[in-house]
Each structure stands twice: as structure tokens, then as C-alpha cells.
């Protein structure tokens, strides 16, 4: 039971922030245990100031924690909201990450003399970016797809943001191939262009046919082609020959041009 109360003048000075540190602390200590004085302070408190403090407090309390991935993406120049969209990997994407790690570990652990290991690595490596892109969007992999599809955010932009993870993963795999494939770093990046071309085709066709079906069909076609090349010519490297690289480059350019044209048309009709 508290018998003593601070006088109104003291409380008003406190509410206005005019007291020194020692007296502020004393008043606060008293307020914690005294309902009567709290009521007095509430009556004289600066309303706009109180609202602002309350809003700031709520803002800090509600602010979702920023993940390490988000920090990195913001540091490289992405807007915080875009970084948020990019950093939330779905469970399907996490599964994809694990299989990529498995693929890399497989390539590293395998003895270099085992030709079939390297062959399968080269056949499967271009599919890494394709599947990474395919998992970024669509009803099969995104639990909240219905809501996403009805939102105005650009579909292509969202897919690209959610596929950002593909870049470091693909880079890491290039590094791994550099260490494993006989022929060194120049040979190791050969699968990059086919991988990019297949990813671009997935992006171009997903709106019509769905990302997963397109990625599955393209992947199957690629595997048949690469294995066919191995059987036909005795080495999987045929599937990475100059002609194939040229076709892949042309595909990439064509898809980019098509996308740019589509955007231009959409811009004109609005």
C-alpha cells in the first residue's frame, strides 16, 4: 500500500520530459507501483508523442526477423521487399538444394578414373538450374500459389527473384566440375550454356504449360540427347560440342528477345 503520491507538478514535468535522469528514474520507480499516479500521468501525457512511441514500439515488435540470406541480398542492392520474396525458399527448393549438394559430393568423392561418374555428372549438371527455376513458381510447389497468382506482382520478376538461389548453386557446381572433370576449368563450364538455355526455355513456356511439366519434358529430352551422344560417339563431350553450344546461345538470345518484345507489347496495351 502506497500512502505517498507524487504531486501533480512533478508528474507534469516528468510527462513533458523536463526532469533530470535521477528524478526521472525515481518517478518511474514510483509509477511502477502506484496506480493513482499512473492515472495522473496518463491524463497530462502528450497524446501525439504517446501515439508515436506506441507506433514505434509496435513497429519494432511486429517487424519480422531479417534472415542472413535477406541481408546478403539487400547488401548486393536488392530492395528489402524484393529480398524478402527471394529469400523465402519453399520446401521443394530445399529438397533441390540437398540434391545439388549430393550431386557435387558425388562428383568430388568419385575417383577421376571412373568415366561413368563423370559422364553422369555432365548429363545431370545442366538440369540443376532448370529444376531450380521450375521449383520457384506454380501450384505444384508453392502452397500459397492461388493467392500469389491473384496478386499484381510481375510473375516473371517473382520467378526470377525466387530463382536467385540458382546462381550461387550453379557457380559452386562449376567450381566442382573444374576440380573433377579431366581437362580443367575451361572444360568445366561447358555445361553452363546448355543449362541456361534449358532454364530460359522453361521460363518462356511455363506460363502456358506449367513450370514442372515443361522442366520435366526438357530434362528428359536433354538426358536422351546426352546419353545418345555418349552411345553414338563414345564420349559424352559430343553433347557439349560447338554446334550444341551455338544452338544453346541462339535459344538464349531468342528467348530474351521474345520476352523483351512481350513486355514492350504489354506496355503499349496498358
Amino acid at each position: 500500500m502506497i500512502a505517498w503520491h507524487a504531486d501533480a507538478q512533478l508528474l507534469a514535468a516528468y510527462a513533458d520530459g523536463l526532469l533530470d535522469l535521477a528524478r526521472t528514474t525515481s518517478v518511474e520507480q514510483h509509477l511502477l507501483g502506484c496506480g493513482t499516479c499512473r492515472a495522473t500521468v496518463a491524463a497530462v501525457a502528450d497524446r501525439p508523442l504517446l501515439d508515436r512511441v506506441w507506433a514505434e514500439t509496435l513497429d519494432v515488435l511486429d517487424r519480422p526477423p531479417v534472415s542472413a540470406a535477406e541481408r546478403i541480398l539487400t547488401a548486393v542492392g536488392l530492395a528489402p521487399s524484393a529480398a524478402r520474396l527471394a529469400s523465402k525458399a519453399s520446401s521443394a527448393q530445399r529438397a533441390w538444394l540437398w540434391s545439388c549438394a549430393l550431386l557435387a559430393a558425388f562428383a568430388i568423392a568419385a575417383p577421376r578414373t571412373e568415366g561413368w561418374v563423370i559422364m553422369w555428372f555432365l548429363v545431370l549438371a545442366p538440369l540443376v538450374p532448370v529444376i531450380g527455376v521450375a521449383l520457384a513458381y506454380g501450384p505444384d510447389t508453392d502452397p500459397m500459389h492461388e493467392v500469389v497468382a491473384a496478386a499484381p506482382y510481375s510473375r516473371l520478376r517473382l520467378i526470377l527473384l525466387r530463382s536467385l538461389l540458382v546462381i550461387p548453386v550453379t557457380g559452386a557446381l562449376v567450381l566442382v566440375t573444374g576440380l573433377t572433370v579431366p581437362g580443367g576449368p575451361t572444360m568445366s563450364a561447358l555445361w553452363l550454356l546448355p543449362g541456361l538455355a534449358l532454364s530460359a526455355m522453361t521460363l518462356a513456356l511455363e506460363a502456358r504449360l506449367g513450370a514442372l511439366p515443361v522442366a520435366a519434358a526438357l530434362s528428359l529430352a536433354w538426358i536422351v540427347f546426352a546419353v545418345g551422344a555418349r552411345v553414338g560417339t563414345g564420349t559424352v563431350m559430343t553433347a557439349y560440342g560447338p554446334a550444341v553450344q551455338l544452338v544453346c546461345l541462339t535459344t538464349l538470345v531468342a528467348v530474351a528477345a521474345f520476352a523483351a518484345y512481350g513486355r514492350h507489347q504489354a506496355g503499349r496495351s496498358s
Partner: protein
Amino acid sequence: MDIHLTNVSKTYGRRRALDPVSLNAGHGVLGLLGPNGAGKTTLLRIMATVIAPTAGQVRLLGHDCALPAGRAAIRRRLGYVPQECGFPAGFTGFEYVDYVAILKEWADRRTRHDEVRRVLAVMGLTDVAGRRIRRLSGGMRRRLVIAQALLGDPALLVLDEPTVGLDPEQRLRFRDTVSGLAEGRSVVVSTHQTEDVVALCPRVVVLHEGGIRYDGSPSGLAAMADGRVWTAADRDPGAVLAWRSEGGGLRQIGVPPAGAEPVPPSLEDGYLLLVGGTGERQEVPA
């Protein structure tokens, strides 16, 4: 007119989910009633710009759904509650609504978070906003999905069975919220609950087997069962449907036997007669 559908149909492979449907609607709540598989969700997904119709023209809020720019313009003023909706793993309620707000192009964090707090408060979720979604009850999750639909005060609200999973009190509060929202905007709500329609909708459309079977007032729908509802101790041969009623005896709808005393029909009677009976399109009684 905010909603303008002309001969809109949808086919999945060989299966026709929606016969050509024409529908115009302006401000206010439009109720969509129909059994499972009637085409309600297909129609609402078309209105939410999630799927494109196989044929026909869709104009919403003055924009053409067939054009990318039109769709983007509609989506900026649209709120959508899908029938089934999952949640990303590990999200809290606040993070979920915040994520949708980013997709709705609220780039600035402060104004976005204020808006997220506002819609969470409207749905009574302020106290649980920081909880992980997997620890929320079914009713709370449903309210969370409704909350994201309210972001940015949309001009068109498409709600696909929003009251599923809500308890009676929450349902009552939801109806209150929606009636408040109907002022100055268009709301389309599908439901199984005839009470929802009675409480919310001045206009009701009954969808059955892919086509519109009724379009008019709820009282008009009830009136279709005039003289075709009666009670008796045992099931009569002319009854299309019969169920035990509160006063004892069987409430029956269909062709009453001679001497049966007709009782005043409810909206549910009219609806059941329509979808359980002949299945032909009935004109609105004058």
C-alpha cells in the same frame, strides 16, 4: 457494372466445368450457391484472374481480363480468398500477410506494416499475429486468408467459401464484417450455407452442373418452393427430399399428396428443390 461476364465457359480437357455463363453485377454482395462440383470455384477463379476462361469475355472493374495490362490493373484492386490455401512453412501470421502485401506492391515497409496491422485487427487476429501459423486453429487460419484479401481496401472481393472452418460466432462476425465492406464495392461470395446468403446477399445465383439455375432475390428463391413444402409423419411418395424437422415429423419437399398442409418455405427449401429436383433452369418468379 464492376463484373461483366459474357458467355464465359471453362473446359478441362474433355470435361466441361462451366457452361457458357453470363453475369453482370455492381456494388453489393452477390451470393453464389451450389452443390460441390457445380462450377462455383471455377467461376470464382476466373473472376480472381487465376485461370483464363476457355471461351467468353471477362471484364472486371472496367478492364479486360484477356490482356496482361488489364489483369494487372484488376489485381491491384482485387481481394481473393481461395477455397483451399496452404501456408509457407515457418511463417507467422504477420509474416504471411506481410508477404502477400509485398506481392500486392506495398514496397515501403512502414506503410505496409501499418496496413498489415489494420487488416489483422479487422479480422480480430492482432493478439495471435506473432504466432507460427501451424500453431493457429483452423478458424484463425481461415481468418488470416480473409485478412490478406482485405489489404489495400480492394474494390472487388472474391470469396470462395470463406466461412468454412469458422465457428458460429466467428461466422456471425464475418457476416458483419462483409456487410460493412459491401458499401461501395463489389463482393462475390460462394457458400454452402443458405443462412450466409439470407444474412448477406440481396442477390443470389444458384449454380448447378456448370450452369446458372437461378438468379434473383433470396425471397424469390424461397418462393419457388411455395406450396411444395409440407410435413407429415412418414415419407410421401411425391417427396424429392425429406428430413426430420424440429417439431417432429418429416419436412418434405416435392409434390405434396392431396390433403397435405403446405408450410411456408425457406430459402433452403427453394435451393434444395432446385438442385435436388428437376435440374432445369427456372425463371425468376415475378
